[in-house]
């Protein structure tokens, strides 16, 4: 791995930013990297009476956990059943294909009509966003379970729930995990977008929108960086667990 190659683009970007901010010389359009760094260096500080970056980020993470957790609880069992039974697949597949292409944000008006402004609407949007990646990957994983593994299990007396618990689920686990990783990524995007809706008054998405109203562009950029870092962190966590738990997948065969 030539790690230094990875460092060059961010450094170049930083340099370009510095030069551009000096040339533009208008903090309401492009603040200097230093002013953004100052915001990032005191993440616990209150921002315009809306709480600190950390507080708002934690609140956003909590909302994602609620919506994403709910989506996983529904999508994984549903995906296993659909993946296992051809007839149920044929039954619900048109419905899945119909709902899947609708962007989560297109659900916002309906969410507001149903749940009003507040936690429930945000959680609902996150739920919708992460449900489909988890569902689709689970269905796919269950359907692709090696036939020999299933036949071996049948020969050695596994059927019903034992077949499910000891063969189907462990075999599909890497695909399900991929679904969780993708689903969490979508959930994170959804929460930030949902928090920008009028009427919201907390969360990292709200914080950057609010900072816009006050012309605090350095806070907007700092907030975006925090959103990016949390996204990368979550993805890295998922990948690390994937490598540890499912290394059989790559080395198999």
């Amino acid at each position, binding site marked *: 791995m030539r790690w230094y190659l990875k460092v060059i683009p961010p450094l170049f970007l930083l340099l370009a930013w510095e030069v551009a901010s000096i040339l533009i010389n208008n903090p309401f359009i492009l603040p200097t990297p230093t002013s953004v760094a100052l915001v990032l260096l005191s993440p616990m500080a209150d921002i315009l009476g809306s709480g600190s970056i950390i507080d708002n980020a934690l609140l956003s993470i909590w909302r994602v956990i609620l919506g994403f957790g709910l989506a996983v609880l529904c999508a994984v069992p549903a995906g296993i059943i659909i993946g296992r039974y051809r007839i149920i697949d044929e039954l619900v597949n048109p419905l899945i294909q119909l709902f899947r292409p609708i962007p989560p944000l297109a659900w916002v008006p309906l969410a507001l009509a149903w749940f009003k402004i507040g936690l429930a609407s945000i959680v609902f949007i996150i739920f919708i966003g992460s449900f489909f990646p988890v569902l689709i990957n689970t269905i796919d994983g269950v359907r692709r379970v090696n036939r*020999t*593994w299933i*036949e*071996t*299990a049948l020969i050695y007396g596994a059927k019903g729930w034992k077949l499910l618990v*000891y*063969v189907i689920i462990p075999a599909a686990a890497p695909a399900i995990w991929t679904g969780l990783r993708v689903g969490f990524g979508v959930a994170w995007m959804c929460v930030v977008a949902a928090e920008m809706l009028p009427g919201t008054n907390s969360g990292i998405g709200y914080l950057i929108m609010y900072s816009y109203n006050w012309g605090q562009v350095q806070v907007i950029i700092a907030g975006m960086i925090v959103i990016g870092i949390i996204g990368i962190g979550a993805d890295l966590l998922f990948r690390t667990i994937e490598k540890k738990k499912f290394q059989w997948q790559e080395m198999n065969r």
Partner: protein
Amino acid sequence: MTVVIQDVGKIFETRTREPVTALGGITLEIQKGEFVAILGPSGCGKTTLLRMIAGLDTPTTGSILVEGKPVTGPDPRLAMIFQEYSLYPWRTVRANVAFSLQMRGVAKEERDTITDRFIRLVGLDGFADSYPYELSGGMRQRVAVARALATDPAVLLMDEPFGALDAQTRNRMQKELLEIWENTRKTVVFVTHSVDEAVYLADRIIVLSPRPGRLSAIFDVRFSRPRDRTSVEFASLRRDVLELIDQLEESQ
């Protein structure tokens, strides 16, 4: 008789709904402790026959009896070893061998005792905690053999178990399989497309003809084990079987 195959036939339906006869009326009896090889050109339905004995496919006609009772589905009296990819990669060797015992509700301690015994029998002591991806192809098949034997089946069904191995490993596995067979005296039905393998291993060689698969000939292999591949009798039997298979393939 451990296995009685009576007039067993199998008709498949193609995608265009046309019936195709894969196997036509096979009758065969296999004695307890016998090592039978089923041989034939590809498309003769030898794997289909084995799968029907295992209860994974149902015959269209005829019946299969194991120890006097008909086979209606997967059955604890039968264990099957596939060509490859049958081990669970997320389980250690020990957990793979213990799989069937676990499915049948054998208590953990008893399971461990039995499992350890069979891991030793196939010469994998020291690898009990390894994962399949850490093992060579030959070692993986030994795990599959240990797993099959751990269920104490009446019949061991083997579907080209060494087909994916290199020639050297294959020869060594054949030798080891015979040693295990002599120790356990299981009835073995061994499907292969290698004439050499069949002559080396089996008491009897069943040759099937292709499309539809029918019983074409039975060769008794009378000379004693361990067999010498370079001996005159080995070579002459191998030639006879090969000639028959060549004829069957040409007449197709």
